[in-house]
């Protein structure tokens, strides 16, 4: 499986939001915990809709959660 170039700071943002658990984030955005694990480990790039939902959960712009590594 090719390494994804879309990186994220979800782990850091969860820590900064009162050590929010993956399960809590999953429930907030309406996906399974396994999906959050896959996104966090950069094994799966979420849809735009889910990416925006994650950014809104942390109350930060999208580019502060996800960025593209050249």
């Amino acid at each position, binding site marked *: 499986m090719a390494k994804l170039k879309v990186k994220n700071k979800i782990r850091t943002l969860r820590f900064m939001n009162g050590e929010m658990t993956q399960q809590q984030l999953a429930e907030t955005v309406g996906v*399974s915990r396994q999906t959050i694990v896959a996104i966090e480990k950069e094994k799966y790039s979420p849809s735009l809709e889910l990416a925006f939902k994650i950014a809104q959960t942390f109350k930060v712009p999208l580019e502060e959660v996800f960025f593209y590594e050249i």
Partner: protein
Amino acid sequence: MSYQEKKALLNMMITFGVMIIYGSYVYNNNWNPNFNTDEELQFWAKTLLFVIPVQIVIHILVHILFSIINSIATKNTEFELTDEFDKIIDLKASRNSSTTFSLGMIAGFVVIYMGYGLTYFFISLIAAGMISEIVDGISRVYYYRQGV
């Protein structure tokens, strides 16, 4: 191992188990080596038409049982969710499974072309079905672990 991975492996085992048990039963009770072509076609049609509802019913029953046991054991309702990640994995696993079955069907035509007869064609089809189910299960586990 996650719920989705367990479910994929369970699907694989049910299909394989039902086909082996039902196949043995049919072979020992209904198979006659002296069938003519029409009787043989009728035999295979009856066998395959009957195995479809049997597979569906057993799948439903086992999955209900598995869901209950899993929710008691893990105390969560994660299995109720099917999100975009699951859908992508479902599509990719189905693609792999369909490709495998198609190759099996081609192998079946090759078998007929080589003059082995209808029995071996249908055995090839059943084998292709079972192998495609295994490919489907392994694909799902692989994608859940390695990502898509």
